[in-house]
Structures are given as structure tokens and as C-alpha cells.
């Protein structure tokens, strides 16, 4: 099978994907737009009864332990924050994607979601160390979506994990992105970018997905958030939430120091905070009845 053939098959698979549910699209558009109110968010969510149930369930869960039962969407959204509500919408509406195994990466069911969620939490924490102001909520959403390309490319990698790992260890390739590209003629960042364009995501989210392993190649004005997600991805992998055979098989772009000021002690604190937040919310989003 030539690499062009595989690339064409990947493109066909992307073309066959369903469009992003309108509710998710609308919530994602808010992440890049300060000019919206709580009322706007409520209006989007209340049109989706299943998502409304999920949001109220999370708000009433042990992780948030409200003193009185949360019965209205507006109170739930204020309590959870828009970041978490968007996360619930992505996890709930795209659960078929995130909650599946990534067989081509030898990654079992649940690991893809754990990696995405831990990356999102870590990106938000790291945004606090950015030299220029970066919205933590945006970093969270970008972290949640950065690896969506793996959901499509995984099937084309089945049976090749050992070979790709050997390429890495023998120095034939520098990292797993290059290994994917050598084998398939494309990689999960490029495929993720194609998916994000098909879905019509905001341009900056598309670029985060495209450049998350090469943040220095992104337009200068986007690099702050790119490095934030790049490091969030690394923190998730180091924390044990990878996606199987590619875990830790990437390089940190050392130019992050021009955008993020973090030392060993603060990184340890980030690890601790990420672990706490991850324990608190990881099960809540996916215990939805959509699974």
C-alpha cells in the first residue's frame, strides 16, 4: 500500500465524518469571543436536553458538592465555569470518538479521553506562567481538542507500533510525528487540522491542532497559546496519561522559554494541581447516559 493511497483513504475518512454538533460548535465559538453573556450560554445548552442533564448532573456531583441542589442551568454554568461546560459538551457529544480505544497506538478504551482531559487541565495551569496574557479557558479547550487527529489515523497504524518504536530507537526518525509521516504520508496533527477545518472550528483552534508539536511554526501571535498546549500535552504524557505507543516519543520545543516562564519547582506544583483537578473531574464528564 503506497503512502498516497493511505493519505487518500485518510482524507476519505475525514470527508465521511459527521459534522460537529451545533451545540458544541456554538460553545466553541464563545471560547474565542468575549462578547457573550451567561444568557447566551444557557440558550445554547437548554436546546439539548441530554447535555442539560449532563451539566446539572456534574454540578450536583460529589466533585462540586453544592450545599443545595443545583436545579437551574444558569447556576450550574456559573458554578462549573464555561470551560467545564464546554468540556462536558465535547466529552458528551463526541464520546464515541474520545471514549473509543486507539488500537493503532495500542491504547485502551478511556486513555484517549484521559490524555485529552489531563492535557487540557495542564494547559490551563501552564497558561498562568505565560509571559503574555493567555486565557486559561481557551487553553483548556485547545488542550481538549489537540489530538483529535488520532481518532482517524489510529486505524491506519494498526500493527505498526513495534516497527515505529524501532525506528525511534534506531534514530531513523526523530519523533513519533515523523514516524507517522514516514509510514502514512501524513500525521495526526495534519489529520486533526483537516478535521478541525471540516468542522469549521475557530481558526486559532485549527492552528493549535496543526502546530501542537511544532509550536514555533505557528504565526507569531498564536505561539503563546501553542506553547501552552504543547507543554500541557507533555505534562499529561509525563503524568502517565498518554495514548499508548507514542507516549513520551516527542520532543519539547525548547523555545517555550520565550513564551512560558516555568522552573522545576513551579512545574512540580503544576503536576500536583493537575493531578488534583484530574481526580476531581475525570469521571464526571463521561458518566453521562450518552455512553
Amino acid at each position: 500500500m503506497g503512502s498516497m493511497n493511505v493519505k487518500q483513504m485518510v482524507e476519505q475518512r475525514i470527508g465521511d465524518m459527521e459534522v460537529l454538533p451545533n451545540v458544541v460548535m456554538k460553545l466553541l465559538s464563545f471560547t474565542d469571543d468575549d462578547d457573550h453573556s451567561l444568557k447566551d450560554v444557557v440558550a445554547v445548552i437548554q436546546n439539548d436536553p441530554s447535555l442539560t442533564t449532563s451539566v446539572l448532573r456534574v454540578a450536583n456531583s460529589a466533585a462540586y458538592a453544592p450545599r443545595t441542589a443545583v436545579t437551574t442551568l444558569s447556576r450550574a454554568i456559573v458554578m462549573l465555569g464555561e470551560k467545564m461546560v464546554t468540556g462536558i459538551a465535547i466529552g458528551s457529544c463526541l464520546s464515541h470518538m474520545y471514549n473509543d480505544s486507539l488500537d493503532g497506538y495500542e491504547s485502551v478504551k478511556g486513555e484517549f479521553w484521559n490524555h485529552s482531559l489531563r492535557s487540557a487541565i495542564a494547559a490551563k495551569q501552564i497558561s498562568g506562567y505565560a509571559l503574555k496574557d493567555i486565557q486559561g479557558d481557551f487553553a483548556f479547550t485547545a488542550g481538549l481538542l489537540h489530538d483529535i487527529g488520532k481518532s482517524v489515523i489510529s486505524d491506519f497504524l494498526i500493527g505498526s507500533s513495534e516497527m515505529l518504536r524501532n525506528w525511534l530507537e534506531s534514530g531513523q526518525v526523530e519523533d513519533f510525528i515523523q514516524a507517522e509521516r514516514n509510514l502514512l504520508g501524513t500525521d495526526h496533527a495534519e489529520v486533526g487540522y483537516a478535521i478541525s477545518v471540516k468542522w469549521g472550528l475557530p481558526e486559532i483552534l485549527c492552528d493549535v491542532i496543526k502546530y501542537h508539536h511544532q509550536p514555533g511554526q505557528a504565526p507569531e501571535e498564536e505561539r503563546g497559546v501553542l506553547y501552552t498546549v504543547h507543554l500541557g500535552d507533555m505534562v499529561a504524557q509525563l503524568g502517565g496519561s498518554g495514548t499508548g505507543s507514542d507516549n513520551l516519543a516527542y520532543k519539547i520545543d525548547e523555545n517555550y522559554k520565550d513564551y512560558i516562564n516555568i522552573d522545576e519547582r513551579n512545574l512540580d506544583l503544576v503536576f500536583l494541581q493537575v493531578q488534583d483537578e484530574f481526580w476531581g473531574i475525570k469521571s464526571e464528564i463521561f458518566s453521562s447516559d450518552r455512553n
Partner: protein
Amino acid sequence: MATLIVGVGECKVSNKNGDKIRALTLGSCVSVIAFDPKNHVAGILNIALPDSSINKKRVTEHPGMFANTGIPLLLRMMTKSGYDGKSELIIKLAGGSTILDSNQTFNIGKRNILAARKALHTVNLKPEAEDVSDNYSRTVSIDVVTGIVIVSSPGKGQWDL
């Protein structure tokens, strides 16, 4: 007969025939694996960070999170399950993976390995075997009866430690 899963910052110990203890997908975390062959007590401590001084409050809630407070926890739990404190205790280390970072800030794995060895040294223990560092994740398990430790990694298969 059960498989006990050890999460990040947790410590699990067993003396039950047929039990296995397993730590999943270790990245920079270091698993300290202990086995008492005389009394058949086994344990795994899953260290996430080298030193508890960064957040002393967490020591009370999760002493297993840090190397300096986790090793004493492991020994207390082993003793509670039948280790007599005098007979041979086999210690092995796994994990502490790295990621390619030229300025080393993100090399938490290496700092965890060094801190685990140091904390073991303070209680006169030394690892008999190690499978640490490198840039891949590991799952590690120990059989409570035999003390056999198995390490596995996606794309690399599995092997004895």
C-alpha cells in the same frame, strides 16, 4: 484473588495468595516495588514527585505522592501486612521516564529516580533491579506469591524485572 491497581501517589500492599498489584502507564512517576519473600508480602508505591516540601498539606492527605514521605508509608504498610522488619526485603524500581528536553526542566522522571534512591538509602535499602528512564511508558505488576515483577510497554512487549 484480585488485581490491585495503584494510582498516582498511591501505595497498595497485599499478602493474599493469588493477588497481583499493578501500576498502569507510568510516565515520570516511579514505582517502588517491595517484596518480602519470607512472609510473601508485596507492595507498590507510585511516586509522582521527589519532595513533599512543595506542599506540606498534601503529606497528610497523600504521603505516597512524594518520594521522601512515600517510602516510610510503604514500609509501614508492608509491616502492617506481615513484614517483620528484619528479613530480606527485595526492592525494585520502574518508571521515571523522560521526555526530550534539552534544558532538563521537564526531567521530572530523573529527579524522581534520584529522590527514590535517596529515600531508600536513608532506611538502608537499595534497589536490586531497576527499569527506569528512557522515553516510553511502562506498566508494572508484581505477583504476591512469587514476587515476579513484569514490565510492559505499548509497542515494546513485556519482560521480567
